[in-house]
């Protein structure tokens, strides 16, 4: 059967959709779609396909594309369809291209002309369709082509067009702010539009603009406040009401804008106080949308200049959120609490038990949010509890993205607030052990730096204690076979620098350990490099101290193996070690001074120490040096590199080419090690730059051994200097300008035993209270009642709501037979007028229906008491059919055919339309 019905779908199409719906597996679905695409590819290429049939083909392509298949062969036909004069075809064309084409697709350029034409159309629906396409397809390059047209449309007589034009301009602003800067006054004009829809749409671009630069829009504050007042006083048309709330979406947008404008501005904030108070007071405290607005109010209150009265209201609302049974509201409560404690830290105390409950909630999202809150309220008094808890939680996370984040949070807190060195080292060990290679490389470098520089300014003793405790713990940990590479690097570095310093471990013992490390991690060249350098350092210290170095046999074989390594970096290091072993005591001491990792290395880039040597050579008759660029007929490396750089720079404008390798990678010896290491990409560049510097210098200069020596010791040291930024802010910032740079660490204020004592508590509730006390620092006497596992009691409305949603009405009589529906009946859904009048509340309709039919009790009760539920599937016909509702959570969606019957039956009896289906059949059949 071919296509029938003017703009409905053919039987083929309905069959396709149905078979996809009934497909039992992804593989089956894929098979169906591939077959379909094959058929379409043939038929779409036939000459003289009728336009209407082409429209359907395009729709089918959209369907295939939506299900994740490639339908690119049909793109051009979709583009052609946008040229069509008939609106239905044009709309289909636009819909298809907006869904098909990515913003950098070549075909877009073919559509621009059509869009230009359509933007000038008399028919506002055509203009609307074009504007929708503009929002998706017009890119930075094509903005100038349509911009004047869109600007003209701001004065269109139809509000729908004005609104879309505003949204299109907003989009242009997002894509290329510069292209529309001269139009910013236009937004101010549309803000005063008569139509609330246009005004509401204007808030979107204004929000972006104000986010970028709040100060230039301060003059609008009064207008915003006035609009807000008007909205809150229900001066907008009734149609903007949503669940008895006046235009909440506009309200929320306005509150967001006011939060930006009033931020840190006392004068501006004073304008806002009144209206905020009004909104909080006036709204009905029952509906969900109210809570959304309330949340936005709290955000606004916490952002603007603080006002005691409003803060009180916000705190009250927060406690209402936290005490709620709904997880959503609890989540929001945790969020607002996090905002409010920034302003008044005492607020948290009141809610400590609620927070602890959230922390132990089975809902992972809520848990994460709570950890975020804890992170915000960490102080030196509660850091141990919080970090320990966070690490315990981190161990069980599967999501790598989140694990990385939480690991870096732990590190940051530990660095900022660590009470003792011991604790710090142990915490870092745990983070590395469990975080694995997800931990940012910078964290490792920071840790090395901290161990090298120490925490305190003048207590050299404390620093050495820190170091030896680090060494102790690392020696213990090394037995673990599954240590992440990054952590091993840190361990190797620390053992090399400080392993033998306090004389507790012998040099050969440490070297043996290091050799074990390389054996256990055969494929990790970075770790090997760290290890061999550490061995080199230990040897150097031994030689410098006048002791004889005995190289263990396994160490000897390691050196031997590495000097034949594929990695030139490793080779280099092995040869350096061999060279070092032959040097005498004094030379070695100046090459590898003890504990000098913090000394500043002055690299003399001019190589001025060679001047004498050069002078001498020139006097002897050598020709003077000519810079590469001045040498004739030489396409020098640097020129080549510069060109390369330039071209890669150019590429960015041409957009979306493959990225060129950065010039640093062109150095051959470096690229070898690139392939072997799996560091985080960002850091790679700098790492290799350093190591290239490190390994290049000795090969170029063959000068005095002292200089050579300092440059040899670059393995750990230089990398540390490569990270001048110290990640944590505030108290623990470092100043590493000279050799003795320091961290003014936080001295442990209270190493109270709260946490330990908490551990010993056997009774659960007492433990919880303790935890709360240690978190919030409240006196234990103050903690009064403890809600016994509040989270388990959340079986309130939400539970019912979900159950309600599951409930489904099926017709048992028809469910057995599976007759194919008359294909044209479904088409009626297209032209049928909506069954209920648009103004009528659908729920009233629903409630009446539910009340009138014999329904399951739960369904009925919930349906009546919570008006915001939709009833998918509970499509109870208003006519003849007898239905029974059953809770059927397990019924898969295969009940389609009978349902479809219901559907069509309903449509037939409910929607008698003027259209005779036969008419269409005559037309195209």
């Amino acid at each position, binding site marked *: 059967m071919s296509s029938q019905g*003017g703009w409905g779908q053919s039987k083929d199409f*309905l069959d396709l959709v149905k078979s996809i719906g009934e497909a039992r597996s992804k593989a089956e679905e894929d098979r169906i779609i591939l077959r379909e695409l094959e058929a379409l590819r043939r038929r779409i290429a036939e000459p003289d396909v009728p336009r209407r049939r082409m429209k359907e083909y395009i729709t089918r392509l*959209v369907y295939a594309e939506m*299900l994740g*298949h490639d339908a690119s062969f049909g793109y051009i036909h979709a583009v052609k369809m946008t040229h069509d004069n008939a*609106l*239905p075809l044009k709309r*289909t064309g636009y*819909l298809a291209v907006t*869904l098909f084409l990515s913003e950098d697709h070549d075909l877009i350029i073919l559509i621009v002309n059509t869009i230009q034409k359509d933007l000038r159309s008399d*028919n506002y*629906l055509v203009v*609307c369709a074009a504007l*929708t396409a503009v*929002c*998706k397809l017009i890119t930075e390059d094509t903005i100038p082509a349509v911009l004047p047209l869109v600007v003209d449309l701001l004065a269109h007589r139809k509000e*729908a067009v004005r609104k*879309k034009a505003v*949204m299109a301009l907003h989009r242009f602003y*997002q894509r290329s702010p510069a292209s529309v800067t001269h139009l910013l006054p236009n937004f101010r004009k549309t803000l005063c539009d008569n139509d*609330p829809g246009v005004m509401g*749409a204007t808030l*979107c671009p204004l929000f972006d603009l104000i986010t970028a630069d709040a100060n230039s829009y301060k003059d609008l504050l009064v207008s915003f406040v006035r609009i807000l007042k008007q909205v809150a006083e229900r001066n907008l048309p009734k*149609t903007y009401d*949503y669940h008895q709330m006046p235009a*909440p*979406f506009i309200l*929320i947008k306005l509150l967001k804008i006011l939060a930006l404008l009033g931020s840190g501005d006392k004068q501006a904030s004073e304008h806002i106080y009144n209206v905020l108070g009004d909104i909080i007071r006036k709204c009905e405290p029952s509906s969900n*949308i109210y809570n*959304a607005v309330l949340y936005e109010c709290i*955000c606004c209150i916490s952002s603007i200049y603080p006002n005691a009265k409003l803060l009180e209201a916000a705190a009250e609302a927060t406690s209402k959120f936290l005490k709620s049974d*709904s*997880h*959503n509201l609890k989540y929001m409560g945790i969020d607002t609490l996090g905002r409010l404690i920034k302003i008044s830290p005492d607020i948290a105390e009141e809610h400590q038990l609620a927070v602890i409950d959230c922390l132990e909630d089975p809902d*992972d*999202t*809520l848990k994460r949010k709570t950890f975020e809150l804890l992170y915000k309220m960490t102080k030196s008094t509660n850091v141990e509890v919080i970090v320990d808890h966070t690490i315990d939680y981190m161990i069980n996370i599967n999501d790598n993205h989140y694990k990385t*984040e939480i690991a870096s949070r732990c590190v940051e807190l530990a660095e900022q607030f660590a009470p003792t060195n011991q604790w710090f080292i142990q915490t870092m060990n745990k983070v590395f052990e469990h975080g694995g290679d997800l931990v940012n490389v910078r964290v490792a470098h920071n840790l090395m730096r901290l161990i090298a520089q120490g925490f305190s300014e003048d207590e050299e003793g404390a620093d050495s204690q820190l170091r030896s405790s680090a060494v102790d713990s690392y020696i213990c940990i090394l037995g673990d076979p599954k240590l992440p590479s990054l952590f091993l690097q840190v361990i190797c570095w620390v053992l090399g620098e400080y392993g033998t310093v306090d004389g507790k471990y012998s040099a050969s013992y440490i070297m043996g350990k290091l050799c074990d490390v390389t054996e256990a991690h055969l494929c990790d060249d970075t770790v090997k490099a760290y290890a061999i350098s550490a061995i080199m350092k230990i040897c150097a210290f031994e030689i410098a101290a006048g002791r004889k170095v005995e190289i263990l046999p396994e160490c000897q074989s390691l050196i031997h193996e590495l000097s034949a390594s594929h990695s030139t970096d490793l080779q280099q290091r092995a040869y350096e070690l061999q060279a070092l072993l032959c040097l005498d005591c004094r030379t070695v001491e100046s090459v590898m001074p003890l504990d000098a990792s913090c000394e500043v290395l002055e690299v003399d880039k001019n190589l001025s120490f060679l001047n004498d040597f050069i002078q001498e050579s020139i006097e002897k008759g050598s020709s003077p040096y000519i810079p590469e660029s001045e040498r004739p007929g030489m396409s020098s490396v640097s020129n080549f590199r510069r060109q390369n750089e330039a071209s890669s720079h150019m590429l960015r404008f041409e957009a979306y080419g493959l990225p060129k390798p950065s010039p640093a990678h062109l150095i051959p010896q470096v690229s070898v090690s690139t392939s072997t290491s799996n560091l985080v990409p960002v850091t790679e560049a700098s790492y290799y730059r350093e190591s290239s510097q490190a390994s290049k210098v000795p090969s170029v200069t063959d000068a005095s051994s002292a200089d050579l020596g300092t440059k040899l010791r670059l393995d750990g040291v230089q990398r540390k200097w490569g990270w001048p930024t110290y990640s944590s802010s505030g108290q623990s910032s470092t100043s590493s300008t000279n050799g003795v740079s320091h961290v003014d660490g936080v001295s442990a204020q209270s190493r109270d035993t709260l946490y330990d004592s908490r551990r010993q508590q056997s009774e659960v509730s007492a433990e919880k209270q303790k935890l709360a006390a240690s978190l919030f620092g409240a006196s234990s006497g103050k903690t009064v009642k403890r809600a016994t596992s509040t989270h388990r009691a959340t079986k309130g409305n*939400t*539970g019912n709501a979900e*159950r309600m949603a*599951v409930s489904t009405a099926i017709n048992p009589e028809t469910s057995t037979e599976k007759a194919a529906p008359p294909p044209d009946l479904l088409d009626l*859904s297209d*032209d*049928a007028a*909506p*069954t209920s009048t*648009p103004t009528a509340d*659908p729920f009233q309709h*629903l409630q009446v*229906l539910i009340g009138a039919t014999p329904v399951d009790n739960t369904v009925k009760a919930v349906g009546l008491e919570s008006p*915001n539920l*939709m*009833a*998918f*599937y509970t499509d109870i016909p208003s006519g003849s059919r007898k239905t029974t509702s059953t809770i059927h959570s397990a019924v898969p*969606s295969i009940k389609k055919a009978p349902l479809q019957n219901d*559907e069509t039956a309903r449509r037939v009896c409910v929607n008698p339309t003027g259209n005779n289906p036969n008419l269409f059949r*005559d*037309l195209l059949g």
Partner: protein
Amino acid sequence: MALLLDRCNDSYALLLLNCRQGKVRLTKWYSTYSQKERTKAIRELSGVILSRGPELCNFVDWRGRKVVYKRYASIYFCMCIDVDDNELEVVQIIHHFVEILNIYFGSVCELDLIFNFHKVYYILDEILIAGELQESSKRAVSRLIDAQDSLVEMAKEEASLIRSMIAQVTK
């Protein structure tokens, strides 16, 4: 089934409907993703969302963003948003969309969405542009959709009229 939408700072969004078994019913991506990325995202998200119990909150963290979802019968409507968006508002935007669908289709069911997915796209385009809410009045949306539909109908009737006239003439 789920409907997924993503409103990040640049208000790029993706939108998908997938079924209880993880079947996709509708997707809308407001920023550029390759088919591979899309499939991966859908697989990840449906795994996360479908496994969540009914009483947990309607938000999940995902790749540093947040996904807000809401279940209606067997369909999950999901929307991916930025971290600093108002989650409760997004839940209500989803609900707003469903209400409009309900008005348009007359108590809407899964089948309506399956067989009229192109209609759903049109309606969505009237509510959200580039991931930003563009119209919050239900009446304004349905009026516009009706206008488009009736225009389609008019064109169709005209065509049939001409057809029958031609048929009469050639008889």
